[in-house]
């Protein structure tokens, strides 16, 4: 084992992590630990764009953007955070341009902007062109540009270092009203070097979590194989809460079976959805706007068709996205990417045949709770000094119960930057927190446990069972029965997880071992998601309970906070305590969400 | 680095094989040139010795060798022109494949012309 000392340690080198590193690297001694080479992070997969009210092509302002964000999130958005994000969006885009990001340009040479779902002028009057973009590779360009600037500023990367534990200490402390509580402080992290199998402990004054999403909880997902929610799960295991985990966004049009995303733009250009009878089924669910209804409505309609036996394909488990009535030239010029994906991955020629699609798990609205300064909260309002989080792993919460397209790339830039600055500033005045004795003990035991286990269960079997269960029971439709079923399966998988074995016992590039550990993270999160979903007996944004189909502001206009607590029992699950946290309102009162 | 023994040959496309050809022919021509200057240098030493050496060039076997050499020179020369076009002509990289076919066609034609004439002289007049 080796010990390294840094002022700031950043976990994750996606958009959020690298944006933080650029700020922090110039102010304090910074290390970035990442399980992937930075340019492999999933931020690179984002296509659509990044919103900011630049008003380059038409009138716009950040207040409208704030409103759209809040309304899009079905009023579960913390409005102070949404204001910060919309206000700082403009600088976030300009910063990226100055760093060299090659945005598409208007004829005058300014950054071009285009329309995107849910972004409107003057509180919903009409669609507005707010998304800045670089062809259909906006995320790729952001990721590359940020990495380039990290190279410029000589940021120290530890590539293929898996962070497996967060080191924190607890101190007795007293609130203003005199009540005692345990104050957590961050001491560092423990990481596993993939190439050598050695453990490295990083002692740091500030730790920034930016480890991205957790889409692999589901089977059908637009997320990468490596998005296993490590950061969320590590925080949860360390006794920190997770906020709003029941809210997961399902994007309607993922390539069936694969989950690869086909942008919303397809339907914008006139593509329509059909079931196995060739029916344009959206006519039944949203008679006026049909296929262009909001993401959650379309996704539910698709799932319903399949559920009622009108799915297509050998297993009747998907519907069709029909572009065959459109002009080939038009598709080719507007949607080159999705036509290429359909051709490459499904062998379907979209000009002549409809493309199999199904909702795909896309984005975790919830995560590690933070305030607008990206400081992680250990309860509703106590920050953990030195611990920060940004990006998909965090929940500030700017997305509430449903994220608007293009707001995530914005989120990672705005709050990534804030996290980098805050972490560096904090490290200037803070002292190192003493490492606990044997800081690596937990991880060593965990690894030894997996390596020496010679049980009969195979990691891949457990994982696919988990993912299938989640797809079947915790996807766009949920009700008490399905959630309980998922809960039972997860409980069973947890038991079976104790009996796994891996074949690779070596130290070098032991991905077999890491997949086993990642499965542990997934099981944790699946459980939290399911319990939180059971707990929220209403429908809001991405969370739709068939047994409670309406929004219930009276009882549920609040964030959910899941804690790990050995004593507690929630919804028959031992070890999870559910609490709530009020939503921050500044000026927009909840209204019915109608477009 | 035996442990990293390299596995199969890389199955490149036309561009790679033409480069292999260009390199091999280049070396062959170079080696031939070294010898050729040495033998030609005999004209400075003894006319008979020179004629003796040249007469070996006139045997059928050597004639075949000469033919091979010319084949190599022709390929190297035409492909060299292609490479120059790739480097200097704006559309060069786009049409490199087509140009390679051009090189091969040109090569076949010119080489056939040469071979007929040369071999008929070499084999015919003795």
């Amino acid at each position: 084992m080796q010990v390294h000392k840094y002022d700031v340690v950043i976990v994750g080198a996606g958009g959020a992590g690298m944006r933080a590193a650029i700020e922090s690297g110039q102010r304090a001694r910074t290390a970035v630990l990442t399980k992937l080479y930075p340019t492999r992070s999933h931020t690179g997969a984002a296509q659509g764009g990044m919103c900011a009210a630049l008003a380059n092509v038409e009138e716009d302002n950040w207040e409208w953007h704030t409103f759209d964000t809040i309304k899009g999130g079905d009023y579960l958005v913390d409005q102070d955070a949404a204001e910060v994000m919309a206000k700082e969006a403009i600088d976030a885009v300009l910063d990226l341009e100055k760093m060299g990001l090659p945005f598409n340009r208007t004829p005058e040479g300014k950054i071009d902007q285009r329309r995107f779902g849910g972004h409107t002028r003057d509180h919903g009057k009409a669609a507005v062109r707010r998304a800045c973009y670089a062809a259909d590779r906006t995320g790729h360009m952001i990721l590359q540009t940020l990495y380039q600037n990290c190279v410029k500023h000589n940021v120290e990367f530890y590539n293929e270092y898996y962070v497996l534990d967060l080191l924190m200490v607890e101190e007795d402390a007293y609130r203003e009203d005199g009540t005692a509580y345990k104050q957590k402080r961050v001491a560092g992290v423990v990481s596993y070097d993939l190439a050598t199998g050695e453990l490295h402990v990083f002692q740091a004054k500030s730790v920034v979590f930016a480890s991205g999403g957790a889409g692999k909880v589901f089977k059908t997902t637009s997320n990468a194989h490596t998005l296993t929610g490590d950061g969320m799960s590590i925080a949860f295991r360390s006794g920190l809460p997770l906020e709003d985990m029941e809210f997961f966004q399902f994007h309607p049009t993922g390539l069936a079976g694969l989950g690869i995303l086909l942008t919303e733009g397809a339907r914008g250009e006139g593509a329509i959805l059909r079931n196995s009878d060739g029916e344009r089924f959206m006519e039944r669910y949203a008679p006026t706007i049909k296929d262009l209804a909001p993401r959650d409505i379309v996704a539910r309609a698709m799932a319903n068709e399949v559920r009622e036996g009108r799915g297509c394909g050998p297993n009747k488990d998907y519907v069709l996205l029909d572009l065959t009535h459109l002009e080939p030239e038009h598709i080719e010029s507007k949607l080159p990417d999705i036509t290429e994906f359909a051709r490459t991955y499904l062998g379907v020629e979209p000009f002549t045949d409809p493309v199999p699609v199904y909702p795909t798990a896309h984005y975790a609205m919830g995560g590690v709770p933070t305030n607008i300064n990206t400081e992680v909260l250990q309860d509703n309002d106590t920050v953990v000094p030195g611990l920060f989080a940004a990006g998909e792993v965090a929940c500030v919460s700017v997305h509430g119960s449903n994220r608007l397209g293009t707001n995530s790339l914005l989120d990672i830039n705005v709050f990534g930057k804030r996290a980098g600055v805050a972490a560096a500033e904090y490290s200037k005045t803070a002292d190192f927190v003493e490492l606990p004795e044997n800081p690596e003990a937990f991880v060593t035991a965990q690894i030894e446990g997996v390596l020496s286990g010679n049980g009969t269960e195979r990691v891949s079997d457990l994982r696919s069972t988990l993912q299938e269960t989640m797809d079947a029971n915790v996807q766009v439709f949920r009700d008490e029965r399905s959630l309980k079923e998922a809960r039972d399966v997860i409980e069973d998988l947890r038991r079976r997880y104790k009996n796994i074995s891996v074949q690779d016992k070596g130290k070098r590039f032991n991905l077999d071992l890491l997949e086993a550990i990642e499965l542990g993270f997934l099981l944790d999160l699946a459980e939290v998601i399911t319990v939180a979903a059971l707990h929220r007996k209403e429908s809001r944004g991405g969370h739709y309970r068939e047994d409670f189909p309406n929004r219930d502001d009276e009882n549920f206009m609040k964030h959910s906070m899941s804690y790990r607590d050995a004593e507690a029992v929630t919804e028959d699950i031992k070890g999870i305590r559910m609490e709530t946290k009020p939503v921050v309102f500044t000026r927009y009162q909840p209204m019915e969400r109608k477009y | 680095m035996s442990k990293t023994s390299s596995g199969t040959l890389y199955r490149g496309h036309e561009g790679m094989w033409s480069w292999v050809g260009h390199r091999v022919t280049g070396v062959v021509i170079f080696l031939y040139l070294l010898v050729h200057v040495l033998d030609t240098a005999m004209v400075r030493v003894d006319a008979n010795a020179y004629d003796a050496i040249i007469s070996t060039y006139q045997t059928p076997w050597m004639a075949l060798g000469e033919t091979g050499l010319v084949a190599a020179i022709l390929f190297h020369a035409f492909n060299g022109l292609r490479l120059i076009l790739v480097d200097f002509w704006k559309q060069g990289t786009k049409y490199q494949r087509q140009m390679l076919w051009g090189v091969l066609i040109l090569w076949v034609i010119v080489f056939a012309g040469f071979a007929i004439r040369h071999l008929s002289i070499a084999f015919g007049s003795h």
Partner: protein
Amino acid sequence: MSTELPEPASKIELKPGVGGGGEIPSFDITLRVRRYLPEATADAYWEDFKLTMYGTDRVLDALHKVKWEQDGTLSFRRSCAHGVCGSDAMRINGRNRLACKTLLKDLDTSKPITVEAIKGLPLEKDLIVDMEPFFQSYREIMPFLISKGHEPTKERYQSAEDRERFDDTTKCILCAACTSSCPVFWTDGQYFGPAAIVNAHRFIFDSRDDAGDMRLEILNDKEGVWRCRTTFNCSEACPRGIQVTKAIAEVKQAILSRTV
């Protein structure tokens, strides 16, 4: 939407087979993987795996199937699984491709499908190579925008044509398929390699950048652009369809016209 589209039929006849039912077509393949387990054997060796795969499966799926069902020690990098992250460049049937973008049915499945690590970088385990030398070359060409003078308060302007000038080379995902397909790089590891040149090109031809000369100077090295023998392997290998050799030619021209 402003343009009036003809309202599509609310119900159409689907072609047979599209609507549902029936078997998923499957086929058997042999995956011949170049294994190298440094902790077990000194040498690399071939190992065959027999698999039943489906029409939409890619080489990556076959590798996963081996790893998850037959041999957990098989090691390879992957992440996005749809050709945008650049993790899984490997030599498939002798040519560099991304495993996640290569459909099995497009390969000849009557023969074993060979899968090996990319060439020219130190092999670490099975299909995993050490990427550090590759990224080192990338970092050396100063892959970031350098502009002199005052920072504008708003964005710098750039015409659509100027933006188009370097569009092709912005697509690079640093997968190393190009560099590890280059015959020069295989034998001369010091060659900067096509990927580094592509990324230099991206900045040299960006109208906002002022450090083109420095990058040209870096590449006017004995291990720089002049090492390229225009073998085009890089262009053929690039999964993003970047015209790599063309970019290299443009950099050569730029160095020439700058010095001559």
